[in-house]
């Protein structure tokens, strides 16, 4: 009788061990897992003097430079970038207002996004800071991810030939990603 009860106990225990269950869980929730990191990176910076204008020619009013920026057209970026905040900090000691223009172009030089920032005039003794935040939301972010280069134009309304000063730019971008499982 004792042996029988022990065997029943053993059998029951083994059955229980092999019939352990997982409950009150919903593994379909894994489809909802979403990584949403916000990554801040420095963008462009420069220091622009009047010689950058005059080296091109007398009374030249526009200077330009271009950089590729393939980060925007990486598959990872195209698939996951949902928003981008560009922050531009212009410090101007020229005594005239300048316009800065950022054009995001694709390989055919088609413009997909453009940012224009009027920069307030300052002075050598009192440089003036002009800040600009450009928030590119979900509806237009697709344009940004088609551009592989950025053209920067700095436009003066009048000649800088006889003006001293510096236009300093600092900038950063916060990239908002959404990574699904």
């Amino acid at each position: 009788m004792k042996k029988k009860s022990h065997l029943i106990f053993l059998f029951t225990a083994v059955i229980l061990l092999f019939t352990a269950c997982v409950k009150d869980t919903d593994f379909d929730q894994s489809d909802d897992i979403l990584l949403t990191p916000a990554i801040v990176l420095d963008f462009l910076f420069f220091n622009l003097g009047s010689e950058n204008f005059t080296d091109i020619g007398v009374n030249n009013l526009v200077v330009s430079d271009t950089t590729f920026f393939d980060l925007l057209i990486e598959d990872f970026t195209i698939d996951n970038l949902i928003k981008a905040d560009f922050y531009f900090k212009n410090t101007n000691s020229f005594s005239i207002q300048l316009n800065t223009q950022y054009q995001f172009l694709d390989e055919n030089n088609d413009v997909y996004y453009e940012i224009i920032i009027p920069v307030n005039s300052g002075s050598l003794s009192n440089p003036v800071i002009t800040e600009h935040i450009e928030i590119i939301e979900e509806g237009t972010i697709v344009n940004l991810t088609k551009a592989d280069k950025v053209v920067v134009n700095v436009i003066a309304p009048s000649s800088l030939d006889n003006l001293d000063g510096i236009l300093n730019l600092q900038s950063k971008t916060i990239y908002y990603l959404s990574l699904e499982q």
Partner: protein
Amino acid sequence: MFWIVSLLSQNKEVLYGLEETPQAMLLNPGSRISYEYHFGVPLLSHIHVNGGSSGVSVYDIFQESSLDINTRISNKIFELENTDFFTATQQLEILNFGWKNKKNYYFSGGIYQEFDFILYFPKDLAILAWEGNANYIGKEFNLGEINVSGDLLTVYHFGVNKKINKKITVGVRAKLYSSMLSFSSTSNSGTFVTIPSESGDNIYDHIVSNATINVNTSGITSLSDLDTRTQVINKLLGRSFFGGNLGIGVDLGATYEINEKWTASASILDLGAIFHKKNIESYQVSGEYNLDGIELLFPPLGNGDSSLPYYEDLIDDIGAAFTIDTIYNSYIQMRPVKMYASVKYNFGQAIGGDKTCNCLKMGENQKYNQSIGFQYFSIIRPKGPQIAATLFYYHRLSDYFSVKATYTADSYSYSNVGLGLITNIKMVNFYIVADNLQWYSNLAKAKSVSLQFGFNIIIDKNE
């Protein structure tokens, strides 16, 4: 080059000291042996699976709840520490045998296959991946938290056990390791931080400092050349039979019967190393870099001139700042040393091996049919030793049925309840051991689960 790779979840707190099962000898080669011969049923004498995490359960993440799963994950990321870990362990005994000679030496040997995996939780990198760096200006993300290893190996072992007097039983086991594949990344360092620019050139400095990431592999890259799963299996099987990277080790153990009531035992396992000489490919990435964006120079270009390759130069600079070396040097991998110690108090019904008395017969050394005791377990891990403490109660209910219940505090939990059942019916020995029983009604809530079972044939001439 030395490093220690951890085998985790190896604490078999229930099986330790269960002298009715031959597998107890693998946990203490100096355990007391009361039978003449044993044979493990090939491939069925010891099956062990374990998976766990020290800081999070499946339920913590996937519970049915109104709280969004991403919030639960986020909460856990900040709750876990970089010393928390995820493990998986599996063992399959292929062969196990033993016999006692005329001089009362008990010889035993066998083969088992083992897989182990451990990943320490890289908290800083998890935060970086989950939230990014935008809200963490000034925080140093520790790249050295990367710590992962995995091993697949076969172990050949042969041991001898001897009761040298009435009180002391000692044993030693030699081991030959045949590594089928191995990978580890355990010696890493470096930081990544975003801080306000010190030079003032741009807004931030994104600085990677003193980064060194090592990945060591053995037996893995050669598998990538194979086309079919059959080829991979055949290759691994070849390595399991001495065709892989070999190593040697030793287990030592002893049992001391202090008096009729008290018994102490201790063992030290896997004192050894694997010498990786074949199919090695290790990688090391090191360097440092300070990123502050792209500086435009506005050069006076003529018509048709290309702009300066700012972006390409940046990528090239980053590439040049980090050297990536592929290393084929042999290396030594220390085995994780494990230690057990136990003291127990015996009580209850007196039993013994004397045929003249109506006693339980399975263990001539078992003076009483019940015992309570304390066990200690430790294992050397990459981030230091980890310790488990166990209280246990053992009861031999009859001459063919014993139970052992345990309560363990370890890295996974402070309330791990385990149970082992052992039967000896005729010559057939069967045991089954599991822990975290309190969660068996819902395993999702357990931070670790472990199950061991097996069949042996045990021959005792006294029966």
